[in-house]
């Protein structure tokens, strides 16, 4: 099992792997996880995200599960690493977390078949695709003002190689808010599974190395507030922590 991280410590940015609960940097130094700043483990060019890809979540927010994947894109400004902060503006009333399996693409390809799709997966990480539903508007839903705010998509802590996850479509997802379990689901309940999504996207556009697909969230999203500590966890991959902060720390 090899878990990869990107961290800042000793005055620079490093790639690292986890060994016995510690982080080994590529230059040989070993450091405790508590002593680093965690950065997003991947630096994607294109970030795909799925809306309503779990039927139970679609019902929960009053939508029918779609006939075709509902895909939207995000910018790199949205990503923030493990132990990061996400801002909840003071006027927001409906801010929700969304625990999601993130699938990372391994190489440039077009027209990938369902049966070959896993050949183009490099591995997996965890994303928390927060939304501030107050800012949803009925144009290009879900619009970027609701979904693509700075640091609103925690990702990490680790990138895990594909070969270390035997059954990516049978992984438990859990979200804890201040230690209390609030969301629980399984990747087996995706409407469109990983190979379907890769076949679908690559049928009309070229996918590139380190592109990432955030595969949607199951039922159980609730409001979060300033000061909340939100942990999104996926079986075999890790636990991604984020803290909600208010406008004041941004001088806004």
């Amino acid at each position, binding site marked *: 099992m090899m878990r990869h991280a990107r961290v800042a410590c000793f005055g620079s940015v490093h790639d690292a792997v986890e060994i016995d609960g510690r982080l080994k940097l590529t230059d040989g130094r070993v450091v405790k996880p508590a002593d680093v700043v965690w950065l997003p483990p991947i630096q994607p060019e294109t970030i795909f995200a799925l809306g309503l890809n779990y039927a139970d979540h679609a019902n929960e927010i009053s939508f029918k599960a779609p006939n*075709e994947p509902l895909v939207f*894109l995000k*910018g790199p*400004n949205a990503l923030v690493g493990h132990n990061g902060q996400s801002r909840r503006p003071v006027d927001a009333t409906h801010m929700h977390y969304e625990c999601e399996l993130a699938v990372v693409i391994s190489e440039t390809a077009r027209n990938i078949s369902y049966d070959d799709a896993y050949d183009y997966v490099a591995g997996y990480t965890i994303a928390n695709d927060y939304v501030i539903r107050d800012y949803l508007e009925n*144009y*290009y839903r879900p619009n*970027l*003002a609701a979904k693509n705010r*700075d640091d609103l998509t925690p990702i990490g802590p680790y990138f895990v190689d594909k070969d270390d996850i035997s059954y990516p479509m049978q992984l438990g997802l859990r979200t804890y808010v201040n230690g209390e379990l609030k969301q629980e689901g399984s990747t087996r309940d995706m409407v469109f599974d990983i190979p379907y999504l890769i076949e679908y996207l690559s049928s*009309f556009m070229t996918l590139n190395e380190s592109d990432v697909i955030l595969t949607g969230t199951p039922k159980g999203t609730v409001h979060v507030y300033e000061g909340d500590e939100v942990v999104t966890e996926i079986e075999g991959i890790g636990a991604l922590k984020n803290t909600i902060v208010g406008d004041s720390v941004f001088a806004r």
Partner: protein
Amino acid sequence: MYTAKLKQVYFKGTIYGVLFNFQGQLEAIGKALQEKPYNEPPKRPVLYIKPRNTLNSHRKPVVIPKGESEIQVGAALGVVLGKNATNVSVKDALDYVDGYTAVNDVSIPHYNFYRPNIKNKVRDGFCPVAPMIVKRTGVANPDQLQILVYVNGELVQENNTKNLVRSVAQLVSDVSEFMTLRKGDMLLVGVPEEAPLAKAGDEVRIEIDGVGVLENNIINEKDTFTGGDS
């Protein structure tokens, strides 16, 4: 010298497009903005992303995907950021601009904007960008730029950035209220109403006064596969 104000385009940033930023577009859609599924006009800039695979160049072909017969030409002023813009005022917004270029924000024609499929905007090569950026200081007023589109040499569209709903500075400011526009990102300020259509065999030329010229020929997808027998 004019050329001293040019620099070669090489994007590593993200390209963001914006919906309905020409007054004529709002006039054309009219009362529909008050009706389902929209219910009310947009309050904040409505953005979309032209991902990396869409990046294309001057005098390179734009490919119409199989199953489609036409593409929509989206003549857009591209605003390239020179430094990270977060929550900047209208007054300061242009200080964050590195320069301007001409872009063709190509789409498959679609007339529902509620949740359009990204397929309409993200096909490979659907974002040709002119070869040069004109530095900010080389453009006296980005809100007074003539936009001309020619198909096969014939003028098919004429508009001006004076007709923007949000001026360039207003747009940069309003977007930066909810997300950082990073150094190297490019914001397309909008596509004028009555965007022309083009089909295979057409030559499309976009001119933005004092900013750039962008030419692309349009071909069908099958034409890109030369095969071995012909």
